[in-house]
């Protein structure tokens, strides 16, 4: 560092004791592994979303009052996005915003998968697992809410379906739908309400949640790939220090992400509001974004006669597909740290997916389950019969889950992971890599 830089650091240090920050946080080690950047990617996508979102908020008009746009009466929100799209820079920034949302959710889902399949949710990190799931839920809600804002025919249809799903919640439906959607859909207060969620409430909750997520991560430290155990002395974490090495990687990742979403936004425009047109009485053939396709598929697969009456409430097919099924999946994920009863000691080294055949089997089964429902969203296009798909929701997860379980178990047996664990009487399996090293 230059002498001038030194002087600046000294000046700050005399006033703010920044060297203590350096000792405490800037030396934090980041383990190196090709799957350890997904959370960061989601974080940077969020940064891009906040920056582009602030820009868009300056051009957007949160109202459905009818205004005159080049001789046509249109809702002000729709008209403002139409006008925004005429400005090349604004159009590109809207595309980047939309694409970054997709990237953020992809990164979050992959991050979740990495944490799940390597057992990183185990003690002491159960709390951060729950915070992370909360962040995923908030992000999906923010994406759903943001989808309405252009107020075109597609977005109004999608939000209307959300309203009617909320209406189908047992006992609380009418109250909940009124509260979240500001009265009967689509009322004039709907857009201001959703705008409030999208630009104030949800970003603030996400900021707070991300803060907690990162603080817990710094406090509890990263988990490490098992190979690191062989190199570590005295239980120290091996990895790159935050400053300067990891910071450089982060900047590169941020720039690559920025470049990628710009390229995507330029080459593959999404949500063409002009083409979709303003809200109309007719419902277009619309499918939700990819992360909600499985819920949409479930709504198609669950038959109308599936209806239960409990304590004065009617739990219909729409509540089963739209609320209960996604709710159960969410609940199962929340309980994962307590459902997994293997190795309940404090865990700092990851368990590669094949070490825990049961977890792998359940995880693959869940992915297959969601996959079949996603496929059901395209039953018409793919020519799949509803009856076949209904059977597949049971058979396919069982098949894939069971096969993964048996394959992983035979791998584990062959490499001696399970037998070792049994002989030692310890639940902590030994890394095959370490066995190779010790020979």
């Amino acid at each position, binding site marked *: 560092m230059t002498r001038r830089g030194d002087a600046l650091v000294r000046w700050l240090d005399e006033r703010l004791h920044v060297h203590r920050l350096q000792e405490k946080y800037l030396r934090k080690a980041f383990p190196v592994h090709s799957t350890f950047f997904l959370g960061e990617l989601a974080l940077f996508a969020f940064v891009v979303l906040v920056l582009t979102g602030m820009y868009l908020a300056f051009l957007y008009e949160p109202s459905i009052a009818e205004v005159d746009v080049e001789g046509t009466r249109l809702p002000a929100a729709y008209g403002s996005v139409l006008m925004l799209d005429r400005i090349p820079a604004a159009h590109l920034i809207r595309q980047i915003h939309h694409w970054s949302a997709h990237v953020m959710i992809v990164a979050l889902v992959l991050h979740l998968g990495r944490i799940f399949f390597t057992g990183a949710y185990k003690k002491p990190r159960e709390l951060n697992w729950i915070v992370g799931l909360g962040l995923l839920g908030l992000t999906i809600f923010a994406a759903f809410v943001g989808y309405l804002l252009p107020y075109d025919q597609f977005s109004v*249809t999608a939000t*209307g*379906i959300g*309203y*009617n*799903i909320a*209406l*189908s*919640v*047992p*006992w609380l*439906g*009418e*109250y909940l*739908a*009124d*509260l979240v959607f*500001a*009265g*009967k*859909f*689509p*009322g*004039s*207060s709907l857009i201001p*309400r959703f705008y409030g969620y999208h630009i104030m409430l949800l970003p603030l909750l996400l900021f707070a949640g991300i803060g907690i997520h990162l603080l817990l991560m710094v406090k509890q430290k990263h988990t490490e790939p098992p190979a690191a155990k062989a190199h570590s002395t005295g239980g120290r974490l091996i990895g790159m220090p935050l400053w300067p090495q990891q910071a450089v990687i982060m900047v590169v990742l941020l720039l690559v992400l920025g470049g990628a979403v710009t390229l995507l936004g330029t080459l593959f425009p999404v949500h063409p509001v002009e083409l979709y047109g303003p809200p*109309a*009485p*007719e*419902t*277009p*053939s*619309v499918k939700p974004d990819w992360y909600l396709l499985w819920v*949409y598929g479930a*709504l*198609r697969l*669950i*038959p*109308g006669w599936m*209806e239960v009456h409990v304590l004065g*409430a*009617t*739990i*219909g*097919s*729409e*509540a089963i*597909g*739209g609320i209960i099924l996604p709710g159960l999946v969410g609940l199962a994920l929340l309980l994962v740290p307590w459902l997994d009863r293997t190795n309940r000691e404090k865990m700092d080294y990851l368990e590669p997916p094949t070490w825990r055949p049961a977890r792998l089997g359940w995880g693959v089964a869940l992915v297959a389950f969601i996959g079949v429902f996603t496929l059901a969203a395209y*039953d*018409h296009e793919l020519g799949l019969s*509803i009856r076949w798909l209904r059977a597949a929701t049971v058979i396919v997860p069982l098949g894939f889950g069971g096969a993964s379980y048996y394959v992983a178990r035979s791998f584990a047996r062959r490499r001696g992971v399970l037998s070792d664990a049994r002989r030692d009487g310890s639940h902590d399996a030994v890394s095959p890599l370490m066995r190779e090293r010790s020979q």
Partner: protein
Amino acid sequence: MDRRKFATSVLGTSIVGALAAVGSVIASIRAVRRSTGEAAVAEGDRLVFAMGANTGTVITRDAVQTGEAVLAFPQGKESNHDNLVMLVRLEPSVYAPPTRLEWTAGGFAAYSAVCTHLACTVRFSGEGVAAAPFSHIHCPCHAGVFDPRRGASVVAGPPPRPLPQLPVRLNEAGEVVAAGEFAETVGVAAA
């Protein structure tokens, strides 16, 4: 009461109070409601085209061919989406219960166009599909299928109940007129 107990009870009371205050503030935002455009279809309303080039013009007997259907609104009540009607014209002889035959006129039958599953606008198809080898009403959202000849009863898919029927008649000018209100709740019934 010692100091620790006092402090604890003050803290407890203020937490309960704060939660109650936050709860009632949240509950209050529910009260914002749209007050206009909620008039429901009633006896004597003339039906007008809801879509296309003739939007807003009154539908007459000659405007719809047998085997066709159009989306219609009661005149002057277009802002209430629940008033949207699928006006079907079929051979008068094909209708059978649960269609209320006295609510049809000259082959015209009117059903709510708001799907009972999740309130998307339904469509009419003059051609049959595997699940319904006849002219049918279907929903583009989650593939519900209704039979317009049989009271728009559910033939396939997730909708929990038929599309409510709206009584219609033809007046002296040959215009399609609502002869009453919807018999049942339109759209999604709250749980």
